[in-house]
């Protein structure tokens, strides 16, 4: 059996799954302390279940997001080695930056050496302003990390108490701003994250759970808790990943659908295409800063079940959340209340809404039903605009190869999986209006936890090698180095990439059996009339998907 827990802003969901079957589930309000919320949910989930039969626990939490959003971060500084290019002062770096000499080019060649005195001076300025965590980011450090490492070493020698993190250890992807910010945030949250991981381990111990604990990643894969200590940002934004996987579990293998997750204040929209969640092309944003974390493409609509219904000059308007829905004892009329009135919600409390709804309608010369319908249709119009925007972004994804351009029109999904209380009613109306298929999973209220429980261990490797420079690098932070063999053709390059893939899986403690190739390219490096070497770009990953799908009948069409 597997346990999945999703700690959301308001609720913490938990499920015990036996393959595609929900054995037990819990939904509780999230408390002040995330670790104790997890422990509480685990305790309830395990009632009547032998802890030894649990083979894995997967956690999805908002912990890192909360730490950063609430500004509970440790101060960090950034040493930048920009070399030639964009003015670094114009780039969105997430910390106070010191810019120093030293540069690497796109081939990984050092084109300017560092000046140790500059490093020393930068370090002193950081220490003087109370900063003792320092991220180091050099442009193209993934092609050659030597300068970043040299600086790290200099700082550690001069001041062993300072914590240094080189950006190439965080990610090997192109985009030094994202790598730099990734390093900054990793340093800033690492202490709190370590504390959290320790508390989770204690809970596990206390409850007699001996199985591995994994963290759900933003890309829908999992990483062992122990490994995630080195890469705390991997677990950021796992909420949308959990709900998308939960929707996929209900929709079945090969699902092509929009996933609509409606909460109190926002509605998250994601896409699943032929069983594969759609990823954001560039990476995630944390607190408005771009980071290197790969995440699912999620569009957010600033409307949810608790959005209030008001009238402005006789026009129905949806506004901010002021609290619970009126049917649940809140003070103002909400979208949820409109759904309840129209008979599109499972919630009771219609009688609590009636007087106000009728009074409000009368004042504006409307029928109560008209007002409720109007409010809901405003929601659907916003949803339509957002979906249109999301489809356009997806269809307009840049393409750098001929086959990507000519591979034809992308087919828009006409199915929606509805998650979250108000989603069901809204989805049913959307389905009627647009002729879409609507799936409301039976366990929609704990879909995120199901998604977490059924998630697979995944690994993606983007491999790059330059046989003239005899270097290779990967997307995985820290996994780069010198080539020992020349890799004369694409086939050998692929074999080498495959071996790195296996090695990475082993080091990350991930049981990986199969890999699929995403792309493979070999370029000739020609200068004058001579071929000086080759550049290879190879992408491989474990096939995405789920460990199991919910048993038949779990999803209900409407």
């Amino acid at each position, binding site marked *: 059996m597997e346990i999945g827990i999703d700690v959301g802003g308001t609720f913490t969901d938990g499920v015990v799954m036996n393959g595609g079957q929900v054995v037990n589930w819990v939904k509780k309000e999230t408390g002040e302390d995330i670790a104790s919320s997890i422990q509480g949910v685990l305790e309830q989930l395990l009632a009547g279940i032998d802890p030894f039969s649990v083979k894995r626990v997967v956690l999805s939490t908002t912990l890192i997001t909360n730490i950063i959003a609430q500004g509970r971060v440790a101060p960090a500084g950034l040493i930048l080695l*920009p070399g*030639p*290019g*964009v*003015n*670094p002062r*114009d*780039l*969105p770096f997430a910390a106070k930056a010191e810019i120093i000499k030293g*540069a690497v*080019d*796109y*081939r990984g060649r050092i*084109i*300017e050496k560092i000046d140790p005195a500059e490093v020393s001076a930068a370090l002193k300025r950081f220490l003087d302003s109370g900063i003792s965590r320092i991220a180091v980011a050099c*442009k*193209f450090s993934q092609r050659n990390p030597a300068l970043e490492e040299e600086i790290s070493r200099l700082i550690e020698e001069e001041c062993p108490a300072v914590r240094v993190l080189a950006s190439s250890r965080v990610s090997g992807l*192109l*985009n*030094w*701003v*994202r790598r730099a910010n990734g390093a900054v945030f990793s340093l800033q949250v690492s202490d709190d994250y370590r504390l959290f991981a320790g508390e989770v381990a204690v809970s596990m111990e206390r409850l007699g759970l001996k199985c591995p604990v994994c963290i759900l990643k933003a890309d829908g894969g999992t990483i062992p808790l122990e490994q995630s200590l080195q890469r705390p940002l991997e677990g950021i934004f796992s909420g949308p990943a959990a709900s998308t996987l939960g929707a996929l579990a209900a929709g079945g293998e090969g699902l092509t659908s929009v996933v609509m997750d409606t909460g109190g204040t926002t509605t998250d929209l994601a896409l699943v295409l032929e069983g594969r969640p759609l990823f954001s092309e*560039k990476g995630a944003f944390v607190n408005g800063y*771009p980071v290197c974390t790969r995440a699912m493409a999620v569009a957010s609509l600033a409307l949810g079940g608790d959005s209030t219904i008001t009238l402005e000059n006789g026009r129905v308007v949806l506004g901010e959340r002021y609290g619970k829905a009126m049917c649940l004892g809140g003070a103002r009329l909400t979208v949820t209340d409109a759904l309840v009135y129209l008979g599109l919600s499972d919630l009771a409390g219609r009688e609590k809404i009636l007087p106000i709804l009728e009074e409000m309608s009368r004042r504006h010369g409307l029928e109560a039903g008209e007002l409720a319908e109007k409010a809901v249709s405003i929601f659907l119009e916003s949803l339509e605009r957002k979906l249109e925007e999301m489809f356009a972004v997806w*269809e*307009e*994804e*840049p*393409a*750098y*190869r*001929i*086959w990507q*351009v*000519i591979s034809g029109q992308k087919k828009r999904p006409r199915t929606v999986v509805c998650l979250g209380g108000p989603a069901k009613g809204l989805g049913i109306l959307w389905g009627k209006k647009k002729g879409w298929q609507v799936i409301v999973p039976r366990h929609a209220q704990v879909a995120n936890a199901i998604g977490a429980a059924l998630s697979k261990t995944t690994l993606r490797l983007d491999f790059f090698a330059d046989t003239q420079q005899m270097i290779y690098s990967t997307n995985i932070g820290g996994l780069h180095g010198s080539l020992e063999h020349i890799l004369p053709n694409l086939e050998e390059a692929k074999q080498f990439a495959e071996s790195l893939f296996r090695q990475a899986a082993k080091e990350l403690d991930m049981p990986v059996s199969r890999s699929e190739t995403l792309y493979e*390219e070999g*370029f*000739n*490096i*020609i200068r*004058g*009339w001579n*071929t000086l070497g080759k*550049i290879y770009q190879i992408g491989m990953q474990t096939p995405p998907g789920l460990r199991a799908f919910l048993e038949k009948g779990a999803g209900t069409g409407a």
Partner: protein
Amino acid sequence: MRKTALIFFPAFDWAISPSHPEREERLLYTRDQIFEEGILDNPRIVEYKPRLAEIEDVERVHFCVPDVASQTTNAHLISAGSALKLGDALLNREIRNGFALVRPPGHHAMRVVHGNRGFCNINNEAILVEYLRFKYGIRRIAVVDTDVHHGDGTQDIFYHDPDVLVVSLHQDGRTLYPGSGFVDEAGGPGAYLKTINIPLPPGTTDEGFLKAWRRVIKPALEAFKPELVINSAGQDNHFTDPLANMRVSAAGYGKLTEELKPDLAVLEGGYAVETALPYVNLAILLALAGEDYSNVIEPQKRGTVLRQSEEIEQAIDRITGYWQEKLGREPPGKDELFGGKGLYLRSRSIYYDTDQIYEQQRESVEYCPDCPGLYQVESRAKKTWGDSRWIWGMSIPLYACPACQARAYEYWEKIIGKKNSGNGPDCFYLQDKKGNRYLREKG
């Protein structure tokens, strides 16, 4: 705030041949530099997806022999289509300006296309110009070609069009392919001084490059008042380019872009794939977006100043002086330039370096007081290894008068009626830009 759009199409799966300068590797380092900079996260820059150009978009410009499909691959259609996509975004007011960072290039492709010339099959900028004029009713467009090679294809296509100003800034044709682009190639009698060639001496630096822009091109644009400016952004004026001998740097290209403010820039040549392209492309992109490009300094340039000799200085002063004087005077009228016969005739031979084709052409333009006049061309081409082609084509200008348009169809009927298989052209073309109708008949 409207954004600067980028279409980056490096065509990682297309090459003329594995070791040709126009190969898969060409924009690899540019990709690395631009992606690594994080500049695509800049809110002032937006990336668009390339698309294919339609066959008709190509027929609006070229007589492809025997047809468009045999002269283009998907890569060509995507390269041209990317320019069109940005053109649409611009005219729909989605963007402030745009950069089609695409390959293969196009500015050596002339009106008649028998094969590949100077790495080009179809002319991306010309296809863009005609598309925008047809679709959006724009009339006056300027194309400023800053490639080191003379933009002879673009010149050829618009040589008789008074509404398209073609300016080419390039290394003197006596020292570089394609060996043309001299000051006396200044447009046909109906479009005189709507072609401006500024041949610069080898060794010209940023200073000379910018001087030619400020002294000649800028005032010419101010006088012409184009509705749209397109930059054929070749980067082989760079001091490290292996195919040419100029000494321009990324900063020079950045400055020119900043001052020229093209609405759309389309990549042309540039074969220093490592030392120039990553930096020049970045500088152009930043300049278009109004961002600081002063830190885009090639490692080869650091600590040195690229200077041009006194002699080069003087040559640049002579050529810019020539144009200042020429453009300062009232040019002779169209009637005078056409002469008594009212017919412009030109015979010439054209060499296709890449495909080794020799083409012989006879062109004519009829004088019309009301419009640019009908254009006809007869062309025979022979490949060194056999196979020859003979074609005849007629073009009705976009702003043709109704009489000329009607007469063109009369000619066409007559010629098609009389065609004699086996003993005449292999292919006949009627290009009706005004009616957006493109006819082709086998001989």
